[in-house]
């Protein structure tokens, strides 16, 4: 966590401690399930979930593909729109002020609540509504963080660019964008897991079957709780995958821009 403290002891603490805590939690969970004879429809043990996950791997992966595709499309579209909107808002104050109440509403509103009307607008048989829900959920953090980043340019840098008499595009390229980039990636990192969660939850509100969300509800209502939890595990992995990808991209780009 803290740079400069990466010694053997530091590594043990930053890597080993969370792993140990995780293993301990899983074991405690399993022990509690066995010791208190908790019925599997309340909370199945982690070993049972793992077994179901392995046995139904193909189904879970199929579900992950459907939901993951929606989340990915939403993430890409939402991120591009969010960044573009932030650039426009940073350049034109009127757009920023006119958009303020709308963006503030989107930020506090359960976007998935829009899913039912989106299903009627785009057709209940298509995945579009889910992608839009994911896209809207992604838009908010990307927009806010990018806008914040674009406003971080320090006056001394702006004055410097002015004294060099460079064009506004050159200034944007050499100062504004590099300053804003870390903020954009922070937004993307937050958005990555939001995209998955939103695409998944949108499935609870209707639409075609096949995704993780529908699979969780249908196996739960079929009293197949181990399988339902296996799908949950699948969604956990999907969320992690998105998060790790965003984090990896961030590290890659920041290493390149730093030299």
């Amino acid at each position, binding site marked *: *966590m803290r740079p400069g403290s990466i010694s053997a002891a530091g590594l043990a*603490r*930053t890597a080993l*401690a*969370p792993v140990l*805590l*995780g293993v301990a939690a899983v074991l405690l969970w399993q022990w509690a399930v066995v010791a208190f004879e908790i019925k599997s*429809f*309340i909370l199945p043990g982690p070993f049972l979930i793992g077994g179901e996950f392995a046995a139904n791997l193909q189904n879970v992966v199929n579900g992950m593909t459907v939901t993951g595709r929606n989340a990915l499309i939403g993430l890409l579209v939402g991120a591009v729109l969010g960044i573009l909107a932030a650039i426009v808002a940073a350049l034109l104050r*009127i757009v920023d*002020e*006119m*958009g*303020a*109440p*709308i963006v*503030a*509403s989107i*930020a*506090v*509103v*359960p*976007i*998935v*609540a*829009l899913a*039912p*009307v*989106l*299903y*009627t*607008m*785009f*057709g209940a048989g*298509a995945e*579009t509504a889910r992608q839009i829900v994911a896209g809207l959920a992604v838009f908010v953090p990307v927009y806010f963080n990018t806008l914040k980043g674009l406003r971080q340019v320090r006056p001394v840098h702006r004055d410097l660019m002015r004294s060099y008499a460079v064009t506004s595009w050159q200034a944007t390229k050499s100062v504004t964008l590099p300053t804003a980039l870390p903020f954009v990636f922070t937004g993307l990192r937050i958005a*990555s*897991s939001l995209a*998955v*969660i939103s695409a*998944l*939850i949108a499935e*609870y*509100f209707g639409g075609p079957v096949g995704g*993780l*969300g529908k699979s*969780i*509800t249908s196996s*739960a*209502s079929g009293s197949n*709780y181990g399988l*339902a*939890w296996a799908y*949950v595990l699948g*969604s*956990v992995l999907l*969320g*992690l995958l*998105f*998060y790790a990808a965003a984090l990896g991209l961030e590290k890659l780009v920041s290493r390149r821009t730093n030299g």
Partner: protein
Amino acid sequence: MTQARRGQVQGRRILTGALGVAVLAALWELYKLVGPAEGIVVGGITILPRTSDLAMPHVWVMVARAFEPVTGASNAIPLWQAVLEGSLFTLGIAAVGWLAGVTVGLLLALLMQRFRLAESAVLPWVVLSQTVPLIALAPLVRRWGSQIRFGEFTWESWMSVALIASYLAFFPVAVGALRGLASPDANHVDLMRCYAAGWWKTLWRLRLPASIGYLLPALRLAAASAVIGTVVAEVSIGLRGGIGRLIVEYAGAAGGDPGKPWAPIFGSIAVGLVAAGFVALIGLFLRRFRRGEVAA
């Protein structure tokens, strides 16, 4: 900035903001007017919506519908009243979830601030917890309702909803508070050490006040998350009485009554804004702690 000048800026903000909403409504109507009835379909995928009155009702239909009765029955209350009741119900559960989430988040942040080992062991899991859609568990959490019972205490469905809301709410608070508690200058920490002030005194006099600036945005995020969590959990747990249930219920009526499903959506926007407004109010009381020091 003088008082009058500030008022002017505020007025301008509100005016342009209202204009923004009006532009959005105008765009809606414009697209509805010129867009093709079946929407714009590219390669079998609908990328722009259908423009029929069913899919995209006129803005005024949405507004007018709110003042008509919920159903055709003679004793039906107006739609806006039903939505208001649902909104208050949802707001109440969200508040419980928010309080629980804020408490847990603060305690976790204090624990992580106090013990570095706790920070390195817990923080990765706190971050990972949000990539885990616990909300996906909602259909499973429902089962707990009928099973958990200690003596007089019975676990009610709304508690499951609040639990899920708190799971979403605790994260920004834990991370924001931790950052806030670590935010005092080295200078200030040295000073407290010079005063031989212990951890608790340092916490109370320095770390907590210094964290307010970080805590308030976290509390606002937590409020939005709690509302989102409540609405979604109401749907997936199947709890009646809240705005989430109305959204699903009225969506079913959209076929013959396209204005109806929009009412609870506006209701949920209102709930979210009220929750954010409440946090802004807290911020007003804590104004003193958000002063910046001018570097000497």
